[in-house]
């Protein structure tokens, strides 16, 4: 009986969540599909916020969605070290390096160029808002072609408003992370949600699945 109830609740939840999906214009994946990258180099982000930790919080949490999407992701701390040892200390400097040079050192098929447009707490009259926003583009390091671009934002104000598409699930992971790791850095949590919204594969407009994913070649995790 308990199993039956559990299944029923799950099925109902899925059904409710599914009805919230909007139809969109199909994203043009022709360049992405032709390039079929297997490995991604996450570049040091350009940070337009005032918080110097923004790049670190994003870098630490961008591997997860990309690896789960089926790509090999160049280890970010080693990437950062390699740039710094060669005198490249900012995201803007790193992002100006020629794709061919990046491919020679890191061996990745594609690089992800990210710009952080918002990071931290803004204090307003009635309440304060913690928000993180970023945009990324995926560039083929063999040809220089742009394969994909996208943007995402996550904000504490979403919890109070009606629009919380997907936030509940993301918060469960974020809160679990905080409990496990004793973190009390709220903006870091929103950086993680932004990163997942930006880089999770499996929907129109999002990244395509990579070769290591069981869903490689499919737009969504649907079984065929």
């Amino acid at each position, binding site marked *: 009986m308990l199993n039956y109830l559990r299944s029923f609740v799950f099925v109902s939840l899925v059904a409710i969540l599914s009805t919230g999906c909007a139809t969109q214009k199909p994203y043009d994946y022709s360049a992405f599909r032709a390039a079929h990258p297997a490995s991604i180099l996450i570049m040091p982000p350009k940070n337009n916020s005032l918080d110097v930790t923004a790049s670190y919080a994003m870098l*630490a949490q961008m591997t997860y969605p990309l690896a789960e999407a089926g790509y090999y992701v160049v280890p970010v*701390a080693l990437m950062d*070290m390699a740039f710094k040892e060669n005198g490249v200390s900012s995201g803007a400097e790193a992002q100006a390096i020629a794709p061919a040079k990046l491919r020679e050192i890191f061996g990745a098929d594609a690089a992800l160029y990210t710009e952080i447009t918002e990071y931290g707490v803004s204090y307003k009259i009635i309440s304060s808002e913690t928000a993180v926003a970023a945009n990324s583009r995926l560039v083929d390091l063999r040809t220089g072609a742009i394969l994909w671009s996208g943007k995402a934002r996550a904000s504490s104000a979403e919890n109070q408003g009606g629009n919380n598409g997907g936030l509940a699930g993301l918060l469960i992971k974020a809160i679990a992370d905080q409990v496990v790791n004793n973190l009390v850095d709220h903006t870091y949590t929103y950086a993680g949600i932004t990163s997942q919204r930006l880089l999770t594969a499996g929907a129109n407009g999002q990244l395509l699945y990579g070769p290591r994913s069981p869903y490689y070649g499919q737009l969504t995790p649907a079984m065929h």
Partner: protein
Amino acid sequence: MNGIYLMELIKSQKLGFAVSILIVVLSGCATKPPNMYSWGSYEPQVYAHFKSTASPEQQIAALEKNLPSSSNNISLPPGYHAHLGMLYGEVGRMDDMKKEFETEKTLFPESTPFMDFMLRKLNTKGAL
């Protein structure tokens, strides 16, 4: 498919799950598939490394907790072994570092150019 038949099906949890998937498929909307990798504390440890909020020894201990063993069957994500190797390098455990870099290459052949780049640097400089 009528309602009674559907309820019979979902009495078994496994079939219930299959039905859920079917509903998701039919509705054309995605839910989050299960994770491919066991992440342990990789993300917060990378953050701690960047912000220097923990010593390399503390970071190593946190990452070693999630290593695969004969009693579990976990797959670590891309970068985990390389990152641990880098931390070993920071505390002078060069053989352990090389071993982790080699493991990264074995698990993820895509990492070979960069891991070899780091190993060559080590051979010429004696340190990372």
